[in-house]
């Protein structure tokens, strides 16, 4: 079934057993983002120390895509420098905006490559991006603003 390209086993695994879930202390910024079309919600906290994302914790409610994406995102960004993590965010955003035409680099995006199929479903792209946008917003607040990226919306 074609949908299997959306509901990859990796996505279902993260959905069933999400990583880094739950809100933790200490944190430098907390945000709450919603996806008004389907009611997905995420509350997300970021801790940044010496330019490194040392923790991302969250509580979320929503579909399997938004849940799994939050889990994958935390795996990717925790322990990275803010600059590197923002690079990953840009890479993931580009993948999600590619409408299935981009061949993702597994060395860079790791488990997040599993979302390539989701980019073919315009109604679901927002679900996959929700936690990333929340993370970026929280990080910007934590570090006192980040430079505008041309790929941003």
């Amino acid at each position: 079934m074609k949908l299997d390209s959306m509901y990859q086993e990796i996505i279902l695994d993260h959905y069933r057993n999400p990583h880094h879930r739950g809100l933790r202390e200490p944190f430098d910024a907390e945000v709450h983002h919603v996806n008004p079309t389907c009611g997905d919600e995420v509350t997300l906290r970021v801790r940044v120390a010496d330019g490194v994302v040392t923790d991302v914790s969250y509580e979320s409610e929503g579909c399997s895509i938004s849940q799994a994406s939050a889990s994958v995102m935390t795996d990717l960004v925790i322990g990275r420098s803010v600059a590197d993590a923002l690079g990953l965010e840009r890479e993931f955003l580009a993948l999600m905006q590619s409408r299935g035409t981009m061949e993702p680099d597994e060395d860079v995006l790791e488990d997040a490559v599993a979302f390539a199929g989701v980019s073919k479903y315009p109604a679901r792209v927002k679900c996959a991006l929700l936690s990333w946008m929340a993370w970026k917003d929280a990080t910007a607040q934590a570090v006192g603003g980040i430079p505008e990226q041309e790929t941003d919306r």
Partner: protein
Amino acid sequence: MTDTGSDTRANAGPAPTLTGVGGPVPGYDVERVRKDFSILTRRVHDDRPLVYLDSAASSQKPTRVLDAERDYYELHNANVHRGIHVLAEEATALYENARDKVAAFIGAPRRDEVVFTKNSSEALNLVAYAMSNAAASGPEAERFRLGPGDEVVVTEMEHHSNLVPWQMLCRRTGATLRWIGITDDGRLDLTTLDQVINERTKVVSFVHQSNILGTVNPVATLVARAREVGALVVLDGSQSVPHMPIDVTALGVDFLAFTGHKMCGPTGIGVLWGRRELLEVMPPFLGGGEMIELVTMEASTYAAPPHRFEAGTPMIAQAVGLGAAVDYLTDLGMDAVAAHEHDVTAYAIERLTAVPGLRIIGPPDAVDRGGAVSFVLTGSDGRPLHPHDVGQLLDELGVAVRVGHHCARPVCLRFGVPATTRASFHLYSTRSEVDALVEGLGHVRRFFGT
């Protein structure tokens, strides 16, 4: 065509008595009906037959409606009410003829009580804006005036289109918004009716049939209380006019709003029906061509209803299409349509109730209930499944449902769910489509279960 108040009451059938008893309707050949809708033969994804269970969002259109619109453009197209040539006269006749058909369909005492709008939302906004415009109108508009201390009453199960316009009206005028709550069974909680609707209430606006819960509300009870306190009554018939016989006189309301695209008609056309004596003194909403009587640089006087409320070139082709839709529904017979949909709904509730992990959000039986059935579901491992995932997998099987808050977010908040999956039926829906849905849900539960 003229605007004289001719008596157009024709098919003022009795209100349907909805009981829990099901069974296919004798004489209603749903397979023949389906032949009128070529879209229903579409195949989707891996060549699966389309199972369209999203008619509460928008119904499909029979060939007759499509032909009427095409015919209009191919043979009669011109602007209305402003030409003396043959096409302009034909276009005007067709447009006004659609008004006659709609008036007869809802049992309106007069044809000039039917105002064409672009949809239900505009019809409801029209009344809400007329009420705030009343502040700047003469004493004749007293009935519509609103200010601090006055109250507007809605229910907790309103579509956003019958909630937000009233919130906005209250913000503009300083009036207070109040609402009737919902019981756990998805019915209106009438225990507080006499407090919520009181001497301060100026207008009560409520949904006849809920698009998310399926509940058919007790119009007579609310109208009786509103009359006791002298409040205006607006009924949102978006989900009732397409599915049951409607007689505005029997309903006893002051205004009725409905929308063409849910009743087998085109998009871009809706209706506000209003009592003549109220429309006559109601201030206009939109200004422009067609709605005026005399215009000078300083000021204007306004046309009589319905034209006072139809500024600018109207949706002529769409009105003609709606007229054809009304003919189609009338030929099928709204009693038969209601009975058929009741059968499919009762069957759906019976089968859905038997699905493990499924909880219906709304009345648990088919009594006083229309064919919109919302539910939430858990996977075979007991975890709640998000409606988005449910809808996506069903779609892949060819089953089209709607997921989300259905423009009634307060209902989701009331039941503590982020969203629901909703299957909704129309005159072409079948029991076997319900079977396809139930089978699909089994697949969904296994797919996400561990």
